[in-house]
């Protein structure tokens, strides 16, 4: 163990205040509790450490430089490492703190390699790749502190192209390639898909995003998962055709295509669930607390979404009250504790959107009648009284949002249809296919040119600038299309010094939640269902903003409603869809 090496280093970890240090292969100290890596390196070369076989170190090894096709040997995990590196760089360019790439994500990745027994470990017996040679060259590592390690590879420029890997891989190469019949450019590509991965979490392309999201969550960066996925689709984060950026010598073919080629956009659920699995697999400790000063706290996110949805700022007061009432703003509720089944798995963005929907239902009922009635009152009042902030008119808001949403949705749909999935550098399954694939590519380019000319100057939709906001409304616009400053006075009434909504009713989206085990959903939503149109509309708005299905938000709305009304609901002992709002008092 490297206890000896770390014995003298007693400082508290800046991240989690623990004193539980380990040593990275680069000779730096890292915190075993939170995987924070310090800038401090061990100064004394301890020869005991070198003989330690638990901490496997990295060396250049005896990588065979040239294969017959001019490519070099490489491993699937190296491919993913490159992908992660590219993604981390992109996130950094978007303004995420540099720690994310060089420390957090890197540590997660290293930990993954170790736990999945791909590196930094003794190969367990019975593995397909049996050969194991304890790194005899590990002495190099310590004697040459300048030597690049995997850690540094992440920040290396790709032109160097010479990736590092576990020494044991290289030595087992011959065996691997002998026993594979499937063709692949990588050394272990065919094995990778064949292996029984029950105890391991096999790396996939969507999982690279799970890694990124996990790192962002760890650092409590102001990026939600829906933001992250949108950035991917908009092309700000490399994902599709990311293999383009692989060094020339890393040839992809055969099964590598299955591993690295992406044929679809990442799905929210998939990335999220994999992230949870990953956190358990890596045995990560409790994540840093999500407090009310964090961007991911529902109060914060509600504010953001209220702005984006062009709703009055005053509504924030109400979302905060709902959040407080049902305790979904608590640190313990919000903070991710991997593996702890009793704690909720919070999807911050969906939760916040659902809170807003519930508040809209509380204040406006959204039954296709009451909200219009209120709107008529407000309109009347605004006509007669031009002083002060105008009263919020639901109808006006609906018109403005509907118009803008329809236009954006249309644009988005067209962009999806116009998306170019292929890159300049086509992939082929085998050398046999090469000429055919290249010919096809050429024909596609020719046809694109020919019809492009007929279409006038058409280029694929230009990348929008990365922004957390998809819709923006400004008070400076004089056309009155911004509702942020509008007042809720028309829909509230004062009682005993407290402002209460005039709306006395509420309707529940569902009487009873389903169990996720039985049907996979907590609730059921479809566009055809008999919900009021206003409700459908509000869900559509948030589903557009988060780029997820409306049913996800609907499910969350149902959960919140259950929490909000549960006690009253059962006390009344009779099932009724509309429970009295008056019984529901907010502090």
């Amino acid at each position: 163990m490297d206890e000896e090496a770390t014995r003298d280093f007693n400082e508290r970890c800046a991240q989690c205040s623990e004193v539980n240090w380990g040593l990275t292969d680069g000779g730096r100290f890292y915190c075993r509790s939170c995987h924070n890596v310090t800038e401090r390196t061990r100064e004394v070369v301890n020869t005991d450490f070198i003989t330690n076989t638990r901490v496997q170190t990295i060396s250049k090894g005896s990588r065979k430089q040239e294969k017959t096709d001019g490519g070099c040997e490489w491993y699937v995990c190296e491919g993913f490492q490159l992908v992660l590196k590219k993604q981390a760089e992109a996130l950094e360019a978007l303004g995420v703190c540099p720690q994310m790439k060089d420390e957090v994500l890197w540590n997660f990745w290293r930990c993954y390699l170790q736990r999945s027994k791909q590196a930094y470990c003794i190969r367990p017996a019975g593995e397909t790749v049996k050969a194991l040679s304890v790194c005899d060259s590990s002495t190099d590592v310590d004697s040459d502190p300048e030597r690049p390690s995997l850690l540094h590879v992440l920040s290396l420029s790709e032109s160097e192209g010479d990736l590092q890997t576990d020494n044991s891989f290289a030595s087992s190469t011959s065996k691997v390639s002998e026993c594979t019949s499937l063709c692949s450019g990588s050394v272990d590509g065919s094995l990778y898909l064949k292996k029984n991965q029950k105890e391991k979490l096999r790396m996939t392309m969507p999982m690279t995003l799970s890694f990124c999201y996990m790192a962002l969550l760890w650092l409590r960066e102001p990026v939600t998962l829906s933001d992250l996925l949108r950035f991917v689709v908009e092309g700000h984060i490399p994902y599709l055709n990311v293999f383009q950026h692989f060094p020339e010598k890393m040839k992809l073919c055969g099964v590598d295509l299955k591993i690295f080629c992406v044929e679809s956009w990442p799905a929210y659920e998939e990335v999220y669930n994999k992230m949870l699995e990953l956190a358990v697999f890596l045995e990560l400790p409790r994540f840093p607390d999500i407090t009310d000063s964090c961007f991911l706290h529902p109060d914060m996110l509600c504010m953001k979404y209220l702005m984006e949805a062009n709703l009055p700022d005053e509504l924030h007061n109400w979302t905060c009250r709902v959040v407080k009432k049902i305790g979904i703003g608590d640190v313990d509720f919000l903070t991710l504790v991997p593996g702890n089944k009793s704690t909720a798995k919070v999807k911050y963005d969906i939760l916040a959107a659902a809170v807003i929907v519930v508040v809209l239902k509380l204040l406006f009922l959204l039954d296709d009648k009451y909200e219009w009635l209120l709107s008529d009152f407000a309109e009347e009042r605004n006509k007669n009284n031009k002083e002060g902030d105008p009263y919020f008119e639901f109808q006006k808001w609906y018109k403005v949002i509907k118009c803008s949403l329809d236009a954006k949705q249309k644009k988005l749909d067209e962009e999806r249809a116009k998306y170019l999935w292929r890159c300049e550098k086509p992939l082929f399954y085998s050398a046999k296919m090469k000429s055919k694939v290249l010919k096809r590519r050429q024909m596609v380019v020719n046809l694109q040119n020919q019809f492009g000319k007929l279409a006038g100057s058409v280029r694929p939709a230009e990348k929008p600038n990365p922004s957390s906001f998809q819709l923006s409304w400004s008070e400076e616009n004089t056309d009155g299309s911004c509702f942020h400053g509008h007042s809720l006075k028309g829909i509230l009434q004062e009682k005993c010094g407290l402002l209460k909504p005039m709306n006395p009713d509420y309707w529940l989206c569902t009487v009873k939640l389903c169990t996720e085990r039985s049907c996979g959903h907590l609730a059921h939503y479809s566009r055809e269902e008999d919900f009021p149109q206003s409700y459908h509309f509000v869900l559509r708005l948030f589903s557009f903003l988060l780029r997820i299905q409306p049913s996800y938000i609907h499910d969350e709305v149902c959960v919140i409603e259950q929490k909000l009304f549960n006690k009253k609901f059962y006390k009344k002992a009779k099932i009724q869809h509309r429970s009295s709002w008056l019984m529901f008092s907010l502090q």
Partner: protein
Amino acid sequence: MAAAPRKNGLLEEEEEVVRSSAPPAGSALLPPLYLPFLPPHFYQPASSHEHKLNFKKSKQACLSYIQDAMLQKQWKRAAEFLTFYVESLEKDYSKEHVGPSEMIWRIGTEILCHHSHSSIKEFNSFMEQMKTLGVKRYLKVCLEHVFHLLCNGLIDEAYQNLSLAESWRFGEQTVIQDKEIKLIQAYRGLLDYCKWSKQKNMLLEHGQDGFEDLSVEQEMHSCFRKAAVNLKEIIKIPGVWDQFVKCYVDLLEFYGDHNEARQVLQEYAYNPKFPANPNAHVYLYQFLKRQGESKKSLISALKNLHDTVPSHELMIDFHLMLQKSKKRKKRRLGLEVIFAVLDYAGWKENVKAWSCLAKQLKQIVISEKHLDWLKQEWSSRKDWWPAFHFSRYLGKKNWQENQSLSYEKALVAGILLGKDGKYFKYVSHQGCKARMKRFRILKKFVHKHNPVYMRISGLSESSGQP
């Protein structure tokens, strides 16, 4: 795979639920409950996977945008989306029935045909690419290409393309595309015929001047041979080959092979394997007429046409021919034919047709023979002809637009509907007011024969009187 354990788990759970809810005392007596197996998709939670955008869905969406644009004739927009759709070619592991390459061929052709900025050069290069794209429809693409060239008057290029396509060999594909090759040959034959026809006209012109060119004549005959061979082949296959048949018959007639021509036309008209084709009978009739054949054969050709297309313009000829016949049966058929013609809106204002009918009706009424024919024809029409032909509105309209039409119609109306019919009343009134002699005679005639109307309408004379 993933559904299997889930399924078991759920079933067990449900069974447990059933057990626990059963009354404890009698539970031993209850037979175990066997639940039916639900299809796996009931257990699979519907995940976001079904909704996530992938290559295929993106391209499908693109395709429907193209279709929308094409329906609205927005060729520029269609071209724009097509540039994104062509990428689907690169997904060569899809084996759908109508693959993207066929879509691209069809859509691309359509766009290039209609887009204002496309040129023949561009069209040619597109077609060449499409030919290399799918050997399975190589010849179809060739044909389509040729049609486009022909439409643009590029006959020589079209001929060249047809010759090239004819010599195309590609293993068993050549055999599979047997029908297409026949078509290609037929179209080449058609172009050979055009050449022949041009040279023929040239020779005839010069022949009048006493000038003869042997080489032109030789070339003309060689064109004839080339055309005849290919045309003969295609018309053996059941189908609608109007153009080919006409040209082939023209060739045969020119060289005096009337028997062959007659055979071809009869085969084309009467072979039950061929789809019903009115034109086949028309061609046969015209040929027989040219040959000065007997009335009998002409009538039989037109009878077939009458059976398939009772509203054909040749029906007037047919009626006249039947009218002249001495046989009652034929004259009876003639009445049927002319009535049938006027059932169609296209003939409503045709003076010739009305005068034919009027003439035959007049004959019948005067002779008072065959009133039963009239009664029979009228019985199926008396419900709707008055509104269709003999309304007051039409009377007014016909009178204003075409007096001879209104005269013939008024005669027919007077006979069929009596002197009190709206049409007759209006027209005869107008005619008498204008002091036109023939209308006065018409009025007299109708008044005189009014009882005929009673009889054919099934009204007895006594009860018919008001």
